[in-house]
């Protein structure tokens, strides 16, 4: 697009690039961009110079449409800057300031072209101010759009972090432990929402396969409340395990929870035991093991399991 406005804009930026850059940097520094210490001045300067170069190239080739391919590189650099800001823990305002603080230096540069034209007499001034008004509007639109683009990338970087942490927490909070050959336990702690339950389910069932476990004990002592949905998730896990050829025992249902569940009309149609220890004893019996008191046992009665 050989639009006058953008041609003029590109020229203005090219002519005043050094002033724009130093003014832009100064504005960001005075706005507190370096205060947190998360970024060094030299790094900020490089980012600004690179972006300004690419913006000028974009204006020369692509007019003022930020969707034009000519702005591709400028947007990539901007995205990179915003993403790293997101990772480094900058606020959205701090991140957006990178683009928006470029407005004033750009306007100032445009004004200087009018001032320069003033020396040339009436007709030139009128033409220059008309062009400047148009350029000002174009620059505003362009920078606003680039600012939004920066925000979008910034938010995505933050969302990625949150999603990753969510997965990590889910994995950390669902340890499947082996109690005996063929007997697994899944001690659940905390509230069970559907996403977490899905992770729990999958990791339990996969471990059943990996260890050829016939029995899995799901211990919910650490689960504060069991609502209808949670109960359904539990039942589904039990049903899926059964389809694979393994049995589940649910343990640690607290009295209040049992009461609530009955009131809710939820029946856990599975073997359930009050404690993990009780469930373990049942599991051992099912795989043909028994727990007996060893002869030399002291008062604490150490548990010994031996083959039948």
């Amino acid at each position, binding site marked *: 697009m050989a639009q006058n406005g953008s041609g003029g804009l590109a020229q203005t930026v090219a002519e005043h690039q050094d002033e724009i850059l130093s003014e832009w940097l100064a504005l960001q520094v005075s706005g507190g961009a370096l205060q947190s210490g998360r970024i060094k001045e030299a790094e900020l300067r490089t980012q600004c110079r690179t972006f300004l170069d690419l913006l000028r190239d974009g204006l020369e080739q692509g007019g003022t449409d930020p969707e034009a391919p000519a702005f591709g590189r400028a947007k990539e650099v901007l995205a990179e800057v915003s993403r790293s800001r997101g990772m480094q823990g900058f606020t959205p305002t701090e991140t957006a300031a990178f683009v928006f603080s470029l407005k004033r230096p750009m306007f100032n540069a445009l004004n200087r072209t009018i001032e320069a034209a003033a020396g040339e007499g009436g007709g030139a001034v009128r033409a220059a101010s008309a062009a400047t008004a148009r350029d000002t509007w174009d620059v505003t639109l362009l920078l606003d759009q680039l600012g939004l683009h920066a925000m979008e990338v910034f938010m*995505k970087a933050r*969302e*990625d972090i949150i*999603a990753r942490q969510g997965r990590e927490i889910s994995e950390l909070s669902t340890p499947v432990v082996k109690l005996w050959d063929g007997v697994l336990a899944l001690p659940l702690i905390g509230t069970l929402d559907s996403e977490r339950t*899905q992770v729990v389910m*999958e990791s339990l069932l996969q471990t059943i396969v990996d260890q050829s476990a016939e029995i899995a004990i799901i211990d919910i002592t650490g689960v504060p409340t069991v609502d209808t949905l949670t109960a359904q998730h539990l039942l589904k896990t039990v049903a899926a395990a059964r389809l694979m050829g393994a049995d589940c025992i649910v343990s640690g249902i607290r009295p209040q929870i049992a009461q609530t569940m009955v009131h809710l009309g939820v029946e856990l149609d599975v073997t359930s035991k009050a404690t993990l220890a009780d469930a373990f004893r049942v599991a051992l019996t099912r795989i043909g093991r028994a727990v007996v008191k060893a002869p030399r046992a002291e008062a604490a009665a150490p548990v010994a399991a031996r083959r039948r």
Partner: protein
Amino acid sequence: MATGDDAARGTAVLAIGSSDDVVRVRQEVRSRAVAAGLGIVDQTKIVTAASELARNTLIHGGGGTVRVESVSQGVRRGVRLTFEDHGPGIPDINQALKDGFTTGGGLGLGLGGSKRLSNEFEIDSAPGRGTRVTIARWK
């Protein structure tokens, strides 16, 4: 923003006219689900739903087509399937969605079951006009 690339290689239309076609639909959906990065459980769910709906298209719709699309929305990627037939249509959709409702001698889990296996479910049908079912599963 979705890239043009994704949209371009995103769509395939398969005919459903025999039980071999149902198998082909399953295979196509599986490879799309893998490409979209769905986990093994999500893959299995969308492939199973596809199998149910393809069989519905075959048996109740007298054959038809399925459009398989790889879709993306922001960070999410997924698979969307649109089954279409020009069969007799479904007079009472709510009833058809209930488990155990069947006219084809099956278990009657097809529609309701595939709804439960999907993140998105849309059905459009009327007597004499055929049936269109759209489902999607996201990563």
